């Protein structure tokens, strides 16, 4: 930061470092051309239908059912990923066991593995004649080509978000606070639920939100295992692809905008809950 006294309200503070205009200009140009213009075109296209038109698309039975599947299953999958992700994060940070480093590296696999590869692998595992699918069939669970398959793919894709947002906070927990709690007579369970867990809640919610948003938009790892039956296991992103292949640009844009809108509202709600829990638990 420059040591000159701060001038009155300016767009930017004075600095001896060069290149501000160049780098900011380049950044804004790229951002505008690559991100903002195309997204604005999408919104404009959907807006061309008018509120009534968008509502008509949203309430079309096939679209409504696809949205229900995408958002409903993603909610369950994000919940599952958050619970098990929390356990995984706790185990990886707090306990020492052989293979811990390897397990830690494996968590990032869904980030690195192309979604199509994950998709065909999950599909062949959970297919009725696949190694896991045949076992599940014995206990009466049909995984592939049903919403259960979508759920499995969404848990796969959401898990790293759930683990990686909570993990750094677990590592930062001050063990002296836990000691104090124990010395004051709290049982371990009480210490965990009343002292350790509350400050982690905002991070758990963030992980949940990220996993949920990712699940809603996910395409590649789902379409192979889902079977894509209309009204049963058809997800909203696939419906966008179908509308596009029918050259129904307006319909595709409307579904996309509805998805973005619902995701945005969900994230907003979670941000509010987060802000509330930060105030409530006094965590910065």
């Amino acid at each position, binding site marked *: *930061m420059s040591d000159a006294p701060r001038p009155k309200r300016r*767009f*930017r503070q004075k600095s*001896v*470092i060069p*290149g*501000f205009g*160049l*780098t*900011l200009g*380049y*950044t804004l140009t790229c*951002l505008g051309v690559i*991100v903002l213009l*195309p*997204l604005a*075109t*999408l919104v404009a296209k959907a807006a061309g239908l008018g509120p009534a038109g968008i509502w008509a698309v949203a309430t079309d039975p096939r679209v409504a059912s696809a949205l229900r599947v995408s958002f409903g299953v993603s909610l369950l999958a994000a919940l599952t990923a958050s619970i*098990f992700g929390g356990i995984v994060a706790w*185990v*990886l*940070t*707090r*306990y020492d066991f052989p*293979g811990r480093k390897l397990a830690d*590296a*494996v968590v*990032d*696999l*869904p*980030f*690195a*593995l*192309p*979604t*199509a*590869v*994950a998709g*065909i*692998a*999950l599909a062949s*595992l959970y297919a009725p004649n696949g190694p*896991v699918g045949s076992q599940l069939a014995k206990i009466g669970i049909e995984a592939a080509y049903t919403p259960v398959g979508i759920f499995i793919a969404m*848990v*796969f894709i959401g*898990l790293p978000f759930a683990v990686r947002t909570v993990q750094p906070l677990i590592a930062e927990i001050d*063990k002296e606070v836990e000691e104090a709690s124990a*010395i004051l007579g709290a049982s*371990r369970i009480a210490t965990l639920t009343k002292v350790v867990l509350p400050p982690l809640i905002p991070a758990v919610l963030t992980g949940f939100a990220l996993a949920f948003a990712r699940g809603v*938009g*996910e*395409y*590649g790892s789902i379409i192979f295992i889902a079977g894509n039956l209309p009204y049963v296991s058809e997800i909203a992103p*696939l419906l966008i692809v179908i509308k*596009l292949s029918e050259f129904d*640009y307006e319909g*595709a844009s409307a579904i*996309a905008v509805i998805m*973005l809108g619902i995701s945005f509202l969900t*994230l907003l709600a979670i941000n509010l809950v987060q802000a509330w829990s930060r105030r409530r638990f006094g965590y910065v």
Partner: protein
Amino acid sequence: MSEAVAPFPDTRDDTIRPPQSVVTERRYVRWLLIAVALTFLALFLVLPLITVFAQALAKGWGAYLAAFTEADARSAIVLTLTVAAIAVPFNLVFGVAAAWAIAKFEFRGKNLLVTLIDLPFSVSPVVSGLIYVLVFGSRGLFGPYLVEHDIQIIFAVPGIVLATVFVTFPFVARQLIPLMQEQGTAEEEAALTLGASGWHAFRTVTLPNIRWGLLYAVLLCNARAMGEFGAVSVVSGHIRGLTNTLPLHVEILYNEYNFVAAFAVASLLAGLALVTLAIKSFLEWRYADDIAAGTRRH
């Protein structure tokens, strides 16, 4: 008030065994949780990975290697490498420029800018492809102009590159911004005071400071660029030998029930993912402080 004289918890426990630490769970709880976590990871993450290689080699090495001698597979490999070779350097330059502007200067609207740069991460891959169809497709915003001048972007390589740039847009910037913010501007200011030019200061002072973080970001950006499926699938048009990237080739082979070839090509991408993870873990272990802002785990 007689209990108050024994402030230490659980005296029943330390009869013979060493005393139980108060900041961890009992041994059986620990092992139970470790078992749950590892079983979950094995079932959901490791098993699919093993499946890829097992299925690829299900009919032996001959069938496995045959999948790569096919002309379509080769052109898919070439296209994937080409797209990554354009998209990754583009985002590298963008990310460094954005991080320089955001981390080294104070200006209004900075938080909004950072949020907008992150935007592509919260957009569905399919929508990422759709938006380019709406802009450059024959019935899109610039459609009439492009048709008139015989420029094909959608269902051609430029569209694939654009969609890939979009989905990998935030990688480098979001890695570098906190890192460069933490490093501050003192070292650059010193270099400039000593008479270095701006570019010289960037090359000899800033770049060495951020190189590991940069490498880390490029690694992840590349993995995503080569593996992107949804966005690319929408803009590619699936023309065999022309606009098929490796992930799209996997899809086509799989849908043709050519499972060995599909998994063989998939194993190539899975191998890329494993190499990425290995280098990533190595960088995190060796250069933790140089990769990300703040003290990291490990």
